[in-house]
């Protein structure tokens, strides 16, 4: 922590931090709910649930998101040096990486899961199953998985749109402070992912 007084913080940055805090609590609600179910039911770790997720695809995706955060901070540095062109280039890279992440998640992972009969609407999977049986509980895992990864993907989409807006608004080299605000929001996405990734892919 630095000795900067709160009044010195520009209002944009202050607002973004409050937004981040609010978002953290929303994600926190999901994460807490999932964690509670996860600790209650060992079935969540079974071959039919978390075990069915492809760890290495997840790792690749994490790396891509990490890279996108690096490009974003480079863009921020460029903005501090008033180098709008460089900043825009790296923001484009960030958007690209974000879209690749979404592409892998929605274009490869989810169809893969669907093919194995795991969908968010578990009506087919649980048809005729005994209440409280393992099938039922694994279906709950998939409910959580699709809900939370979907919600996270939504934030990536919003973040990309925000960055795109910043790219447009900085096209004449002004409003460069906005690069940082968009960046902070983008880092929030990474911040949430470093929790989601272990929860779904690693603890099984």
């Amino acid at each position: 922590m630095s000795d900067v007084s709160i009044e010195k913080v520009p209002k944009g940055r202050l607002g973004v931090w409050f937004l981040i805090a609010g978002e953290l609590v929303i994600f926190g609600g999901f994460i807490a709910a999932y964690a509670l179910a996860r600790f209650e039911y060992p079935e969540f770790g079974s071959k039919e649930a978390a075990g069915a997720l492809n760890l290495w695809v997840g790792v690749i995706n994490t790396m891509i998101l990490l890279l996108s955060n690096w490009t974003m901070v480079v863009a921020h540095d460029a903005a501090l040096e008033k180098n709008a062109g460089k900043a825009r280039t790296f923001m484009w890279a960030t958007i690209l990486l974000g879209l690749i992440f979404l592409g892998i998640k929605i274009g490869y992972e989810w169809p893969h899961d669907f093919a194995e009969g795991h969908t968010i609407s578990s009506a087919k999977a649980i048809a005729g199953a005994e209440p409280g049986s393992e099938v039922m509980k694994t279906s709950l895992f998939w409910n959580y998985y699709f809900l939370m990864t979907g919600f996270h993907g939504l934030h990536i989409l919003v973040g990309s749109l925000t960055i795109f807006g910043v790219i447009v608004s900085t096209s004449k080299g002004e409003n460069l402070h906005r690069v940082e605000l968009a960046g902070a929001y983008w880092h929030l996405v990474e911040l949430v992912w470093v929790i989601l990734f272990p929860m779904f892919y690693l603890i099984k």
Partner: protein
Amino acid sequence: MSEHHEQSFISKYIFSLDHKMIAKQYTLTGICFAFVGGLFAVAFRTQLAWPGTSIPFIGVLDGMKYNMLVTNHAMIMFFWAAMPTLIAGLGNFLIPLMLGADDMAFPLLNMMSYWIFFVSAVVLILSFMMPGGGAATGWTMYPPLSATIFVDPDAGLIKNLFTGPSLLILAVALEFASILLGGINFLVTSINMRAKGMKLLDVPVVVWMLNLATVDFMFSVGPLIAGAVMLLFDRIFNTGFYDPARGGDPILFQHLFWFFGHPEVYVVLLPGLGIVSEIIPVFTRKPLFASRWVIIMAVASAFIAMIVWAHHQFVAGIDPRMAEFFSITTIIISIPFAFIMFAVVASFFGGQIEVKTPMLWALGFITMFLIGGVTGIYNGSAGLDMYLHDSYWVVAHFHYTLIPIVFFGGMAGIYYWFPKATGRMMSEGLGKIHFWGTIIGLNMFAFPLFFSGLNGEHRRIFDYAAYQPMMADWIISIRHTATYGAMIIASSQLLLFLNIIISASSGEKAGKNPWKANTLEWVADSPPPHGNFATPPACYRGPYEYSNPKRSGSDFWPQNEQ
């Protein structure tokens, strides 16, 4: 924003960026919804008093219709009447004016937040018109009932989305988003845009309270948004988050709900308390007693409010040891509010009290809220709540807290700041009749319910014919009295509309500072122009310097004067 440019009708009155206009939009929407909610209440009170009477536009109530009215009465009063008037309306109007700023920190965000709120209101109204009608789940929307009612698992997404409960959940989520955005605006404004020389403790108590309320809201609303999304998915995607057969857990929703639901009570309580502690010094011509400690205690209560949520679930089958803990924290939270009450009462002694209408409403707030406060101890005590939970005792208790907070507090604010908002005084006579009608109605309505509640009359029953002990003559007469009370409250609100219309058009002109108050909003013209202040005011002292011996001549010392 301070330069004066010509504005078209649209940009001045509808898509306005001016915080004062947005505040008026919020407040008017809120008042209209409050009236609708009140009519709902009158409707089902009529059914309770005279079962089987046909109500205009609704007809004879059956169980389903009754539950719909009760549910939407609570929802509307909380989220579409209390929040917009007290938090959004008041906050938007007061925060920039009291801090000597020209507008909110993010005017565009401000306008967006109102229009998101407006959309949420539209979605709410749509939810009444869905096949099967509106949500009939109780305002707490406990699953599995709320996750299954009106849902046809095979019907598919769209059909299940367009049902009353689904749309209500959607509307609530939108409403939260709007208040969240508005709240970020409040916090940034009051941190960054205070007038030159205004230290944190020179900020008026009401602004403190509004910001504390916003912080509480911001930190507590997340779990409920998550829970609401999960509930919506249970309805439209046939997921199993709250379905025990699939390992889901209904209790989880109750926690997600009340983790927000209890701080929510303080989100509306703190601004009401702030308004009163703003009005008392002006009409007693005396500083607010120990105003710094009042702020500190408000901060303390805002924190404790976050760790009392499970006291709504004592009998919901939660772990009894947890219940013990929450019972203790709940009773502890009475301490800061006891302090604030004592401080308010202490500020009366040795004053020169002038009982104008705003002061009258403030007095009504204090006395009625005292009843609500002390009866809260009964419910907070887990051992006793086992008996009182979900009985009319609870109904009486929270009407004795929420009506003073939202209604008396809000009215005190409206009567006090109306001259600043419109430039004209409100009629004292009409205001006083309005007050006495409301307070008499409130006590006729709520006080008898304590006794029927103690006798074990339980809530949300549309016809007590099945319950012999509840058909005793004295309990039936209590139902009649309560219904008459509700009718008196509702009808005396017509005076408010009358008063607003008459005064806004032909009330006597109010100068810059009709109440001889210290805070900065009275430095601006009334109504303040676009951009509020001709020259940005500076601040030299705290807001409650009344009858200061160092000040010669007048008995008040505005914050901006040397």
